[in-house]
């Protein structure tokens, strides 16, 4: 089963890393690297991406005749943006939750776990092949 683990954040949470010490940043990056390495090793990692900060985001809807209508930043402080995702293929929902919890516990200031909110979503599958 495939699951998307979605990590969100506001512009403020993106910027907060700027106040960390070099060691705190390094510990955070190491935690993510180790987890990535483990998921690669176990064959569970399908894909993963980090996204550029939300102040560079553009929100687009089609207007008259399909012409794009664009909303640029800055966006409200409290607005949640997708920060990045992991797609994992694992045995069970329990395992996906376990991975999500590891991600959530990445260390932040003072080395304390950040306990970020991670959304776990099952990925819809293509229809099964027809019986021959």
């Amino acid at each position, binding site marked *: 089963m495939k699951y998307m683990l979605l990590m969100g954040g506001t512009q403020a949470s993106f910027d907060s890393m700027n106040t960390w010490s070099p060691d705190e*940043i390094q510990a955070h990056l190491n935690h993510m690297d180790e987890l990535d390495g483990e998921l690669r090793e176990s064959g569970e990692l399908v894909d993963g991406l980090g996204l*550029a900060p939300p102040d560079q985001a553009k929100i687009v809807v089609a207007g008259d005749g399909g012409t794009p209508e664009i909303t640029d930043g800055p966006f409200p402080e409290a607005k949640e943006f997708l920060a990045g995702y992991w797609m994992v293929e694992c045995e069970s929902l329990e395992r996906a939750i376990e991975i999500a919890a590891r991600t959530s516990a990445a260390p932040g200031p003072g080395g304390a776990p950040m306990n970020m909110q991670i959304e776990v979503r099952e990925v819809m599958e293509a229809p099964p092949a027809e019986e021959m």
Partner: protein
Amino acid sequence: MTSGSQPNVDALLRDLAPQVLGALLRRFADFYTCEDAVQEALLAAAVQWPEGGVPDNPRGWLIQIAFRRLTDHLRSEGARRQREQRAAMQIPADESTAAAEPARGHDDTLSLLFMCSHPSLSSTAAIALTLRAVGGLTTAEIASAFMVPEPTMAQRVSRAKKRIRSSNVPFRMPTEQEWPERLRTVLHVLYLMFNEGYTTSIGSALNRSELSTEAIRLTRTVHRLLPEDAEIAGLLALMLLTDARRAARSGPGGELIPLAEQDRSRWDQAAIAEGIAIVTAALSKGYVGYYQLQAAISAVHDEAADADATDWPQILALYGLLKQMTDNPMVMLNHAIATAMVYGPAAGLTLLESLDGDDRLAGHYRIDAVRGHLLEMAGDHRAAVGHYRAAANGTRNIPERHYLITRAARIAAEGP
């Protein structure tokens, strides 16, 4: 990308790929179908040779199989193409029996390179097509190097081939008038291919380094075929001298290590020696070009035993020459750094100001990164931190972003 136990078969196939395609194209002009047939022949060889051994005449074997696949394709396309079919069905005796015809094989490689670097293709399309048609790589290998799904890459290659077909690019060398411009495009595509592999991306650095290796191999081939061209030599030297630092360029976690902080004992001395020899010989030919100058700058860095021993006045002089040759803003940026290293950060910062009005650099993270660096050199830590953070926000390269955030945090912790 090599299949591990069969590196020799893989290397042989990659060498033969353009020769086999050339042989087919001389009989049947449709690039699209010929290229497919060659890929099928290469795949067949990749499966059969490791088991049953390499045939005595591998080139002839591949040509025969490819011709057979080609006629199968044409047959299935129906009677509409009967005439061409008849022409293609006869496997020319000279093609399948000649073990190697060096002169013709070499021309084929060059003609194909010119074809695949055609100006009507985007650079991404040209790189992918070059890797397949000249490099003999499979679509799966190219897809993995670009980190896109295989069907996506197959589609890209197919669209590039259709474009070549519809713009009627002939399978031949460019004319004398076309030559300089077309050669420049070929070199540019090879240069981009190399850079694509050199820009590490998290977790996938290994796959991507194959692109650099392949770019070096193809450039080496072009250099062997046209040894008198000093710019080709310059490009090959530039690639070797840059690639020599690969192992020292990132840490165990994939983090970026800047040139000044690299462990120079991890640099590849053999590649450096080869690069220096090539660029020295090229420069002595009298004509000094863009790639040669960049290679010469790289060589000066590579020759320094440690960062402090870098001959910055020489690098500054080389950037001065480069600046006269191009208005590439990245060259201006590097020129500003070299100026700062020779005359101090204030001189570099003054040069940067002249770049502020340049639209091509507006908002580019590199200008913030360089300004941060020069401000740090000047002791203005507070301002440096701001520019490093702006640069971190602007880069799309994860290791680079991490490097810039960490750098900002380190200076911020030291205080203003």
